[in-house]
Structures are given as C-alpha cells and as structure tokens.
C-alpha cells in the first residue's frame, strides 16, 4: 500500500493517541527520542522509578509508575507484614529521590488489619529506611472514609506516595471505585499503592499487581564479608508480579537493604533449606500438640485456573 506522507502522519498521530490512552511507555519513549531533538526531553517529568532489578523493571515497563495505582496483595493475614514491608520499601525508594525529599508518606490504615497485625511503628519505620517524621498515619473508621482520604490525598499532590490498606475484597470497593482512584492518581500524577491484605485476586484498574509472601531473611555480613550463620539480616520478599502487560508472571526473591534503601536480587538461601532438615536448637523436637489443630494442611490440589485479571 502506498502511503502518502499525509496518511502516515495521521496514522502515527492516531497510534500515539491510542498508546497515550493505554498509558504505554514504549511510544512515550519514542516520543521522548523525537522530542530530544527539540530539546524537550529534559523537561519531561519522570513517570517511572526503576526498582533496580532488571527483570522486574523490564516487566513493569521501566519501574514503578509515579502516576497511577499499583496493587500489592498478600494472601493471608499472617503475610500482611511482608506486604507492608514491600509497600514501605517502595515508599522509601520514592523518598530517596532528591526532588521528592520533603513530601511525606501517607499511610491509610484499615481498622481490622491494625487490630490483627498492629499499627506501623515509628522506630521500625526508621530502621526500615522510611523517615518517621515524614510519615502520616490515617486511621479512618469506615471504608468510605478511607476511599475519600485516598482520593483527597492523591488529588492534593502533597504526598510522595499514598498507601491505602484494605482488608480482603470489600463489596464497596469494586471496579468502579478502583477505576476512580486510578484515574485520580493518573490525573494528579501521584503514585497510589493499594495494599490488599489477605485478599483474593480481583479485577481492578491497577495495571500491575504484586503478590508478596514472606521468605527467610538473609544472613548478616561479618566485617570480613563472610556470613554470620543463624543471624537475621535484611528482609526478603517472595514477589510475584501477578498482573502486568507481560503474559508470563514474574516471580522472584527480592532483598530489601534498608540501609542503602535499595532492592537486591536474593537467591534461594541455603540456610533456609538446611533449616528444615536441621533444627536451629538442639534437643528433641516436640510433637505437635494433640489437643488443638496444627497449622492447616494443604487440602486438595492446585488447579491451573485462569486468573481473574
């Protein structure tokens, strides 16, 4: 087919329009390259913050979106702190950026989750790499209040990141509400992390969804760079990018270094495997109590069901 320059131009503009609607960054990068000639590229705002892990950054099209919603999910309530940790690690990563230096982090907590797993602890935040003096904790009573808070916070543009904690899959927080929040975040150009504790996979308007599970921590380094056996070092998360444009889910172990505020790839630690064989403490292993249930055993088999989204 012969294309006149006119039609090519139009086609190009339409493609661009579509990709802009979809929020894809590939064309945005091309646009940037084009703009570079006219000296626009420098003024363009950074919309992605790389996590520093090549596989993850590639799957997330350059890193964590600064103008949109990202969902982080934990399967069980006892994994809630791992998800908390990953969300706060992202917050710390954003706080590290020089131009966001003064903006605080807003944590909108969920009442039930606070009761079950406690509230964020300022000293712990400091140890984790988040500045507690730049951390605001909101404790709304109802979900509607929490949603209003999240929307207002994102709209105000005063926070480097707002984290909305939700327990489970509440009926009043469906696709409509999530779309609304997502659009607000996009319009305001502010990141919003939706932290779904002990929730199922659910269709939402967040382009990316992580599943976070705890994993054994790394060991501490000794001054001569050898590992101290049996010590508990940096936290490690088992991270699965459940939802993305990439069809294959990315799953990896991620170590968070609170001191340098950076993610590091972690490999399956040796001591975790050996720990199952060898108890840490000598002495007889007590049998599981008979008068009450032990930890719930796996029931049934896992089927390859399709994901909800």
């Amino acid at each position, binding site marked *: 087919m012969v294309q006149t320059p006119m039609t090519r131009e139009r086609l190009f503009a339409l493609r661009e329009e579509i990709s802009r609607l979809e929020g894809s960054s590939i064309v945005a990068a091309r646009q940037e390259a084009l703009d570079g000639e006219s000296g626009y590229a420098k003024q363009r705002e950074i919309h992605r913050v790389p996590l520093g892990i090549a596989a993850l950054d590639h799957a997330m099209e350059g890193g964590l979106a600064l103008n949109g919603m990202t969902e982080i999910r934990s399967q069980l309530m006892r994994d809630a702190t791992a998800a908390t940790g990953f969300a706060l690690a992202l917050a710390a990563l954003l706080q590290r950026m020089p131009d966001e230096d003064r903006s605080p982090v807003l944590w909108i907590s969920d009442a039930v989750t606070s009761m079950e797993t406690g509230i964020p602890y300022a000293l712990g935040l400091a140890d984790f790499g988040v500045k507690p003096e730049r951390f605001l904790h909101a404790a709304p009573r109802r979900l509607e209040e929490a949603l209003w808070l999240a929307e207002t916070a994102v709209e*105000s543009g005063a926070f480097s990141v707002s984290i909305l904690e939700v327990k489970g899959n509440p009926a009043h927080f469906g696709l409509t509400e999530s779309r609304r929040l997502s659009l607000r975040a996009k319009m305001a150009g502010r990141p919003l992390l939706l932290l779904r504790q002990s929730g199922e996979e659910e269709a939402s308007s967040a382009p990316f969804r992580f599943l976070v599970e705890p994993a054994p921590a790394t060991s501490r380094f000794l001054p001569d760079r050898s590992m101290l056996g049996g010590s508990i070092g940096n936290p490690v998360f088992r991270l699965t990018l459940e939802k993305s444009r990439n069809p294959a889910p990315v799953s990896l172990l991620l170590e968070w270094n609170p001191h340098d505020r950076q993610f590091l790839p972690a490999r399956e630690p040796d001591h975790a495997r050996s720990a199952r064989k060898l108890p840490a403490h000598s002495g007889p292993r007590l049998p599981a109590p008979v008068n009450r249930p032990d930890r719930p055993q796996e029931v049934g088999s896992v089927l390859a069901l399709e994901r909800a989204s």
Partner: protein
Amino acid sequence: MRLTALDEVAEAIGLKKSQGVAEARAMCPRLEVMEEDLAADRRLLDGIADWCDRYTPLVALDGRDGLFLDITGSSHLFGGEQALLKDILLRLFQMGIDARGAISSAPGLSWAASRFGSGGVIAEEDMELVLAPLPVASLRLEEQTVASLQKLGLKQVGDLIMAPRAPLARRFGAKLLLRLDQALGRDEEPVSPRRPVASLSAERRLIEPVQAEEDILYLTGQIALSLKTSLEERGAGGRAFELMLFRVDGRVFRIAAGVSQPLRDPKRIAGLFSERLQAVHDDLDAGYGFEILRLNVMRYEAFDTPQEDFDGARQKDVSLAGFVDRVSARLGADCLQSFQLCESHVPERAVAANPAIHAFTPGKKPAAGVFPWSRSERPLRLFRRPELVEVSLAEVPEGPPQSFHWRRVTHRVSRSQGPERLAMEWWVDGADAQSRDYFRIEDDTGHRFWLYREGLYGQLPSPRWFMHGIFA
C-alpha cells in the same frame, strides 16, 4: 418535700417558697406539683445563655436562674441600652420565658434591681437612689446575715448606706461591705464569661433566614472576607475558628474547626466549614432556618508571608496543610496522626501518636529523632498491646523458644536473635515490674516476629511470653 418555685397563679393564692408541699396542698387542694429537675433547668439556662450570645459574647451564668451580660461596647449596635433591654425581654417573652432585667454600671446593682426592684436602665447618678429602698436581701448576702440584719432593724439597703462602716464590718465581716460597695459600683466585680471569648469575630444578620448548606457556606465565605482585613492588620492568621449559627427559634449551633497553619484566605475558611458541615450533617437541624451567622476566630497566630519561589516547593506545603485541615475537619483531629519519638526505651512508650493538625507543621523541617542508646532493630508493625504466646519449650535460662503457639498456629523457630533485655521504667511501672527479654525470631516459613519473655526463669516459676510486633 418543699416548694422551690412557683408560678404567678400560685403566688396569687399566697403560697411561698420553701413551704411544705402538704401545707400547700391543704391551702389549695388542686395544686399541681412537679418535681424539680435541676439538670433540665440548667440546660434551659444554658440554652438561653447561648441565645444571648447574639447581644454580647460575654455571657456569664448567675446561680440557677440568672444571667449576667456584659454589654460594654455593644449596646449601640442595638440602638442604645433602653432598646437593647426591651429587645431582650420582648424576645424572651415571645419564647414563653418570664424574664426581668436591669442595666446598670455594676453587676450587683443590676442583680438587685432586676430581682427586687423594677428593673430598667439605671443611670450612673441614680444608683444610690435606686438601691436605697430595696431590702437587704438584694445585696446577695447569706441568709444568716440577712436575718441578723433584719433583727437589728436594718431592713433596707439605705439603712446600711447610712450606717457607719467600721462597726458593720466588725459585726458582719468584710463581705457585707464588699457586697454593698459592689452594688454601688465602688468596687470592681468581674463577670467571668462562660465561654472563651473570641479574639475576632464578624457576623451577618439576615432578614430572611437561610437553610441551605450552600447559602451557609457562601455567607461564611463573605464573613471570612470581612475578617480578612482585621487579620491582615494584626499580621495574623486564624488557627481555630468557630461558626455560630443562630436558629430562628433560639437554638444555637457551634461548629468548631482548626487548622494546622495560620489561615486567612476566605475560600479556604469556607472550604474548612464545608467539610465540617459534611461531618455534622445529621446533627445540624436547620429547622426554619438560621437568622444570624457569626464567625469567630478563637485563636490566631502570626502569619508569616513567605516569598514565592519558582520550584513550587511552597505550593506543596500549602497543599499538605490544606489536606491536613480538610481531613481533620471532616473526620476529626484524631484521624490523622503523626508520630513523635519520645525519650523512653520501652517500645510502646518510645513513640507517641499526635494529631497531625497540632504536631505536623508543613514547611518546617521536622526534627529528626535521635537515639543515643544502642538498640537492636525494631519491628515494622507493633501491636497496641502485646499478645500472649504459648511457648512449650525454651532454652533455659535466657534462650529463645524452640517453637511457640500463637493464634492457633504452631510456629517452629528456625533462627533467632537476642535477647535484648529491657528493664521497665521503675519511675513509671514501680520497682517490682518484670524486665523483658526481646527476641527477634524467624520461623521456618520466613515470618519474622518480635517476642519477649516477661521476667526471668530464675525468679518466676514460669515466665510468660508475649508477641509484641512483626517484622517485614
């Protein structure tokens, strides 16, 4: 049972206060007796006092059935003292309240004239003239003093004015003369208002009452605009505002709102009350509408006008302050908290959560917490109160548990760090508080917990274990 109050008909029959009910019934068999409800009386008086705020902000309660209004500087707004008194009494009469009042330059004289005299406005030069024929009871004296004065034949205040002061003071104490001087305006008597007086206030009186929320907010914005110049003159901005809504039927609503930074922008003040109205929506019954709207600035602080810069950093502070104000106005000040580090080594006391509206000052560089003492890592989430954990086997005397049972699940410990021994604060908890040994524990599934043992194995037969926090 005795009579404490009478209506006009009962007074006409000849009943008296503090008469026995049986005696009164004997005099008038059809007597209707109602039990006195002090709390209800008090509520009514409070309601009337609220209503009287329209005349002056300085309203003080006087005993069970009286009000003092300090109308210094406000009477001219109502067309003079005479017109003011007439207006108050007429409006109260229309509401079904039998009220008497007097205006004079001494609270004591007003009290005497309204209760024992004919009331009205008493000029400065007529004070002695009005007071002289009144009974001595009008001086707010104790009953005993009044009785003994009457026994001596000193029945009217005029007799006391004539009498030599020294013997009176010797016989009845200084209080009698103090009351006399106060009634004559020779001695100062402060009237303490029942509510804190606003630093600044402005109001709108409406001929047509408003009911709609938009109208109220629009008027609030207008009033805030008229307050702006006074705030600018003082170089100040308001920190605490109060919107008073006077309903047509006499009910008064007060809606308070605070801000985190001094504020004088009318739009933002109106916006603040828009959030507050959302929050109190159900409690605010507009009824037939509000006739007076008043905006009080309860507290103001210096308003520093910073120079705008180009990088927009200040804009961010403004939007943060706006966010904090909006949330605090709508969801209450306790909803939004910031953490302050305190000087304590006990984990739950080391951090205090304060309302962000008081503690969080955007724009200023927050003071970073300094921890001079060495400590191990703290958990990311801390329980409000530690939860009891069942530990079946732990290393004695001061080792970590091998496995523990918490929330119906057994966790097998794979790695642990500790103990970190924290003695409790004897100046708070007492000398016999048990010290805590904290362990950082990882179980075989990778969950990390913060456990502690209360007490030592040597001292207690079986020390208890608690879960205090969870690490990421």
